[in-house]
């Protein structure tokens, strides 16, 4: 361990409210990026199925594969990754690994006839149908499991909230709309089909804001000192710059302004891409800043009345 890192660790351990660094610094950044990409992949698959967009489905598959690689990069011992399926009964990470594996296999089975018709099996064959079902099961698992990974973290009170899974589901859906918008833009689809998506984006963004507001309110009103410190870190501490710059300015103000413009008139292709990317990047910074704001439950508790 290099000297600066060791000194930082000792400093952290001496403080009563110790910040978590394992899942946001060093290789831990891959954990945040992996969850972000996998969430976007899940949402993009769902919305692309709904809008029957072939390019969106392929994009979701590629993103899920990238998310898997990012998850492996987060591991200290990636060569042992296959062991992660062993504790499915209690571990949310294990369930997520299962979901990602099922999704990748199912999506591949479903995509092959879409892109290579008549090559190996047809789009109406049982194999494609099995792939469809596997991809749906995998998608729902991917969208759902991430929030529970954090909720199961009893050491970090700010994450240990029942709202966290719901918040991560809405992130995934918002990211899914962004992914589909990107795919539609890249595919040169007509602008007419975007109005509904923009309305949906506004609705889901409102849900993200609502859940996030409730979570912060819960931490401030009924949370312990660690949860309150996390909120402080988020709004006025070491991660505030990511929250205000990345989450609010990039992820909310810019896309909201573009969405407003889109509701009042047709958006250009470039504006669609900017909206999608800014919205997705905002979600990344939202996850990054809330994860990095995590503070461990203080070990010290009131021991006894004063003598």
């Amino acid at each position, binding site marked *: *361990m290099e000297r600066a890192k060791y000194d930082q660790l000792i400093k952290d351990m001496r403080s009563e409210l110790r910040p978590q660094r394992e899942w946001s610094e060093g290789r831990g950044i891959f954990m945040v990026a992996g969850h972000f990409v996998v969430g976007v992949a899940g949402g993009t698959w769902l919305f692309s199925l709904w809008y029957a967009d072939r390019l969106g489905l392929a994009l979701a598959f590629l993103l899920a594969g990238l998310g898997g690689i990012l998850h492996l990069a987060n591991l200290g011992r990636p060569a042992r*990754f296959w062991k992660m399926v062993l504790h499915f009964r209690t571990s949310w990470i294990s369930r997520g690994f299962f979901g990602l594996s099922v999704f990748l296999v199912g999506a591949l089975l479903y995509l092959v006839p879409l892109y290579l018709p008549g090559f190996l099996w047809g789009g109406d064959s049982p194999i494609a149908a099995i792939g469809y079902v596997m991809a749906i099961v995998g998608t729902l698992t991917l969208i759902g499991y991430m929030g529970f990974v954090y909720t199961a973290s009893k050491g970090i009170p700010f*994450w240990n909230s029942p709202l966290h899974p719901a918040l991560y589901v809405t992130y995934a859906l918002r990211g899914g709309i962004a992914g589909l918008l990107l795919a539609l833009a890249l595919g040169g689809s007509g602008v007419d089909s975007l109005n509904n998506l923009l309305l949906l984006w506004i609705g889901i963004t409102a849900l993200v804001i609502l859940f996030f507001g409730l979570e912060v309110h819960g931490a401030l009103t009924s949370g312990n000192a660690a949860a309150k410190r996390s909120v402080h870190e988020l709004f006025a501490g070491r991660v505030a710059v990511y929250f205000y710059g990345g989450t609010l300015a990039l992820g909310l103000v810019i896309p909201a302004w573009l969405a407003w413009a889109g509701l009042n008139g047709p958006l250009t292709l470039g504006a669609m891409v900017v909206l999608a990317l800014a919205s997705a990047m905002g979600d990344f910074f939202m996850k990054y800043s809330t994860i990095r704001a995590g503070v461990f439950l203080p070990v*010290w508790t009131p021991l006894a009345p*004063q003598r």
Partner: protein
Amino acid sequence: MRRGMVIDLKRCIGCYACQLSCKAEHGTPPGVFFARVLKHEEGQYPTMRQLFLPVLCNHCENAPCVDACPTGASFKWAEDGIVDIDPDKCVGCRACMMACPYSNRYYNDSPQHYFEQGPTAYEEARTARHQTDVVMKCNFCRDRVRSGKQPACVANCPTVARIFGDLDDPTSEVSRLIKDRGGFPLHPEAGTKPSVYYLPP
């Protein structure tokens, strides 16, 4: 049988013998403390006091780290309730560190030694045996305990502030002390049922 420990905070003088003897026993690298001592000051001048809180893995009955581990590397021995880590199974995802309400798990992220000149002979013999890129923690000195000895931190405490025994046996010293002197665990609200109890200072 459920191995457990009672720490008498009235007897602890904050000498760090537990922390050092643990390091000597396990040869843990820099930044890894299976046992450590926290200092705290309570009250306001002139009615204040300094308290010491020795902490280690709580070997919880409902261990959240065991539930969070995706590979089963974190596990509980059925015969004595000790929570342990199999380093050969650990993938280094650090989920157990986030799940532990007591912050008593450490990630050994690279080969480490204390001095800039390089590893000492002691470190080459003891520290190097630990796998890197895996999580480490206290295992109640299970090898010592199985051979009939006390954990190193218990054996080396000069004030006998640490008592080790069987929590399932109501006649054991640990059970008696918890009952007679109001032993309490850390963070009972977490629902983890720790096997480490403290006697009030």
